[in-house]
């Protein structure tokens, strides 16, 4: 493939001479990368590459690196072991029962190298494109398109008035008002009792003099008012009262003139 400018570190060429070994293994992105660099050194299309020659190169390279006491990472050694196996398998008479066959393993390795090479070239061509900030330029400080959010407060008259109502309610002193309950007043009882005394001659129970025919609380109010009225009339000397004992019925009749 066509050589393209790279803006990253150039891939080291295959080590054809001793001094190439000065390179540290850090220059490669793993064993596959090193294999690709060596393969490119064969200067033929990856499709025509001799896998056997490539294996030889790799094994030699690793061996020399170790002689020079370079750190050789484990994955490079694993690859070396696998390639050593592949080499012997390729060199031995073919065993038709062996699966996968060494030829198939070699083909897979070749396919992998082709794919890595394709992506390596693609990366170089990508980085060589007209890039923003290097080859083409955009406006450094555009005004920008802005969406300005304008807050709009919302409240109804009801919200306002009910809020005020609650403020008033909170701030006014709390007044307890007892609602007006229906009662029989003392005046009414007095009036009624005087009228009844003119009719009844003999002793009669207080309950016979109650105004109206009430039940419940109103009857109790009538009893209380009539009792107080009876006491008042007795004080004026207009009625006689008698009771046989505590909590016994109260009797009354008009006083004898």
């Amino acid at each position, binding site marked *: 493939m066509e050589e393209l400018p790279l803006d990253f570190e150039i891939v080291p060429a295959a080590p054809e001479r001793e001094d190439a070994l000065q390179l540290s293994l850090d220059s490669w992105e793993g064993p596959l990368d090193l294999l690709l660099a060596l393969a490119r050194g064969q200067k033929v299309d990856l499709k025509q590459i001799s896998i056997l020659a490539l294996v030889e190169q790799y094994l030699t390279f690793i061996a020399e690196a170790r002689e020079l006491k370079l750190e050789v990472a484990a994955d490079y050694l694993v690859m070396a072991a696998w390639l050593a196996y592949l080499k012997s398998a390729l060199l031995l008479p073919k065993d038709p029962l062996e699966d996968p066959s060494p030829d198939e393993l070699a083909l897979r390795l070749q396919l992998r190298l082709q794919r890595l090479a394709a992506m390596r070239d693609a990366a170089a061509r990508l980085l060589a494109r007209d890039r923003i900030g290097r080859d083409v*330029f*955009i*406006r*450094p*400080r555009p*005004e*920008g*398109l*802005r*969406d*300005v*959010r*304008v*807050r*709009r*407060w*919302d*409240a*109804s*008259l009801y*919200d*306002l*008035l*009910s*809020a*005020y*109502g*609650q*403020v*008033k*309610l*909170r*701030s006014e002193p709390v007044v307890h008002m007892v609602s007006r309950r229906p009662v029989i007043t003392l005046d009414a009882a007095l009036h009624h009792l005087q009228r009844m005394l003119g009719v009844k001659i003999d002793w009669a129970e207080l309950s016979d003099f109650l105004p109206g025919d009430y039940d419940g609380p109103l009857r109790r109010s009538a009893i209380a008012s009539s009792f107080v009225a009876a006491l008042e009339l007795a004080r004026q000397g207009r009625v006689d009262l008698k009771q046989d004992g505590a909590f016994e019925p109260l009797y009354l009749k008009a006083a004898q003139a």
Partner: protein
Amino acid sequence: MIDDLERAIEAMLFASDEALDARQIAGRLGDEMTPGQVKAIIETIAARHAGSGIELVERGGRWHFQTPADLAHLLRRERDDPRKLSRAAAEVLAIIAYHEPVSRAEIEAIRGVQTSKGTLDVLMEAEWIAPAGRREVPGRPLIYKTTDAFLQHFGLTSRKDLPGIEDLRAAGLLDPVDLAFEEAMGELDLVKDGEEA
């Protein structure tokens, strides 16, 4: 066909993060150009863009590209963001409306709770209240009143349209039924006020 020098100057003006004068441009071109020659080219560029959506304008001898002022509305779009007025703000607004002009201390005395500055700010932002001078008492506190915008928003002709206390009572707005609930809400508002402040 636009000539190379014109293209180059146009691109420089476009890509520069500050306005450029003719001397700076001549310097960058590195040719034997006088600022006068550069200026002539700049004017050609400006004329080419005249009436388009991009303008080349001069400010104090420096040139830069910008968008025409009459298109500003397209570049800065305003959007409504409706917000419901908080309970606390509604109370403060009502107090100002019923008692105006009124100071913050007076509002607090009526509400019986502290009022954050943020609440008054919200009402001013809504343009429903405005400062109405200062109370001539020690400390000369600011006093507030409602605005015409307030009357408009709430559909009132004047402040006299606001119902009296008896009307509120008749309408059930002074009903204590919700008191406990409202008090609970009032506390929530207080918490919010605190957060706003």
